[in-house]
Each structure stands twice: as structure tokens, then as C-alpha cells.
């Protein structure tokens, strides 16, 4: 198990596998950060229910852009230009959950509730990691606090619509059904060799299966509390 703490000046001296894994994870993280605004801004910013909601959508996009900027900076500093993710189509995103477009407000709400929550799990993986510049970014109060804000907004809106009952409850259940499996899939394959190597090099803290189970326990409790049905965790899954 690798436990050294590496700063930018020592990056090139590291094992090629360490360098490759760090380059890869930063590119994926940058893609996910900008993938969110690309999913929802076009349809949701003009059509959010209230002016306040519209402003919150814009502020959320600004914060995700700032997270992209921070990851792009880390990647750029080790020689990886991740500006290509800014011009790619949604269908080309690394992570399946970002390949599409959010059309409806309830999907935006559940995206915050479930998918931004996965984002928090992913960022938490880097707390205390062996690459110090990355650890500093996620240990800074802003990034995780902002992600928590997106999650809370989505969770509160989801609960609010579930509590309305009838048609609204059915619509929010449909959105939960759709995003739930995408959230579980975002943790990747439980038997991933690469996941083990990330852990070996101290770039991630938990195996995919452990993080997924912790996430599932957390969201299942919230879904039940909202008096919604917990979707089938195996239906439509790409990774187990």
C-alpha cells in the first residue's frame, strides 16, 4: 500500500501506473463536473417553476463549473488538457448518467437528490489521498459544501413533490426510478481491478462495492422517509 504524500513537483518521479491513474481520474472527474450543467441548463434554466428556482439553477451551474475549473487545473498542471470535455456531446461523456438531457423539473430535483449525492461520494474518495494538490481541493470547505447544497436542494424538492401526492408523487417516483439505478451504476464494477489499484496507490479510499452500499443505505432510508417506493436495485443496471 502506497502511503507517500506527493506534490506536483514530484509527480513525474512516480510510478507510471500512479501517473496514469491520476490522469484518468482527473479527466473523468472534470467531465462529470461539467456534465451536470450540460444535462440541465438548456431546458431547466428557462423553465424552472419560479424566478428563485431559475437563479438557483444558474448558481448551481456556476458552482459545478468552478469544480470543473479546479479539476481542469489539477489535470493541466500534470500535462493533461481536459478542455476537450467542454466541447464534446453529452453522448460522449465518460459516465452514462450524463449522457442525455434533463427535460423536466422533477428530474432536475431527483438529479440533485441522487446523482449529486454520488458526486459527493466521489469527491470524498479523495480526502486524504496521496496526491496532495487533489486532497487540498476536496478538503477545502467550498467544494463539498457546495455539493451538499445541491444535494439538499434536490432532496427537499423531491420530498416536497412526493408529499403533494397523486400526480406529482407519481411523477417524482418515475424520476426516482430512472435516476436510482444510474446512481448505483456510477460507482462502477464491484470487481474492478482498476478500483483496487486506485486504493493501492492511495488515490481512493473505498472499494466500489463498499461506497455503493453506503450510498444505497443512505438513499434508501431517505426514499422510504418520503413515502416513495425503493426501486429495484438490479433493474436496468450496467454494473454490479
Amino acid at each position: 500500500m502506497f502511503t507517500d504524500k506527493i506534490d506536483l513537483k514530484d509527480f513525474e518521479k512516480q510510478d507510471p501506473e500512479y501517473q496514469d491513474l491520476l490522469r484518468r481520474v482527473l479527466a473523468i472527474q472534470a467531465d462529470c463536473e461539467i456534465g451536470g450543467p450540460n444535462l440541465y441548463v438548456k431546458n431547466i434554466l428557462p423553465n424552472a417553476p419560479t424566478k428563485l428556482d431559475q437563479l438557483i439553477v444558474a448558481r448551481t451551474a456556476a458552482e459545478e463549473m468552478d469544480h470543473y475549473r479546479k479539476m481542469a487545473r489539477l489535470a493541466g498542471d500534470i500535462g493533461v488538457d481536459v478542455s476537450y470535455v467542454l466541447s464534446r456531446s453529452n453522448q460522449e461523456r465518460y459516465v452514462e448518467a450524463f449522457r442525455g438531457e434533463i427535460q423536466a423539473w422533477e428530474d432536475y430535483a431527483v438529479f440533485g437528490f441522487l446523482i449529486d449525492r454520488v458526486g459527493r461520494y466521489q469527491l470524498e474518495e479523495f480526502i486524504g489521498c496521496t496526491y496532495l494538490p487533489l486532497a487540498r481541493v476536496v478538503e477545502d470547505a467550498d467544494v463539498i459544501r457546495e455539493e451538499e447544497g445541491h444535494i439538499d436542494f434536490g432532496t427537499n424538492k423531491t420530498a416536497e413533490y412526493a408529499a403533494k401526492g397523486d400526480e406529482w408523487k407519481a411523477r417524482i417516483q418515475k424520476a426516482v426510478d430512472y435516476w436510482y439505478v444510474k446512481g448505483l451504476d456510477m460507482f462502477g464494477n464491484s470487481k474492478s481491478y482498476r478500483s483496487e489499484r486506485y486504493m493501492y496507490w492511495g488515490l481512493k479510499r473505498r472499494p466500489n462495492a463498499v461506497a455503493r452500499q453506503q450510498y444505497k443505505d443512505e438513499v434508501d432510508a431517505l426514499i422510504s422517509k418520503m413515502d416513495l417506493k425503493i426501486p429495484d436495485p438490479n433493474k436496468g443496471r450496467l454494473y454490479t
Partner: protein
Amino acid sequence: MQAAPNTEALDQQFKEFIQALKSAVGSAMPHLKDDPKVVEKAIGDCKEILDVVLEGKVKEWLS
């Protein structure tokens, strides 16, 4: 370690986009109940900035 080309320029450009967005949102929030024109203008400004960002014409931004 040599940084990727445009790392600094892209970082600066994004700081400007983000600052402009946060400034527009910040200017509108206190006026949600008393000045719809200010709010409408801020939302329009945000849409304009985000349209540019999501178009992703990086070479044009940095030229």
C-alpha cells in the same frame, strides 16, 4: 513538470465566467419580491453566459 498548453488561460477564462454568473445571481436575489426587471435581466445574463460556456468553443475564448 510542464503544464498542458492553455492551462492558465482556461483557468482565468473560467474564473471570469463563474464570477459573472455569481455576480448576476447575487444582484437578483435581494430583489426577487420588489424588482422583477432586475431579476429578469439577471436571469437573461446568466442564460447568455451559460450558452457560451456550454457551446464549448474553447479556441475562440482563448484566442
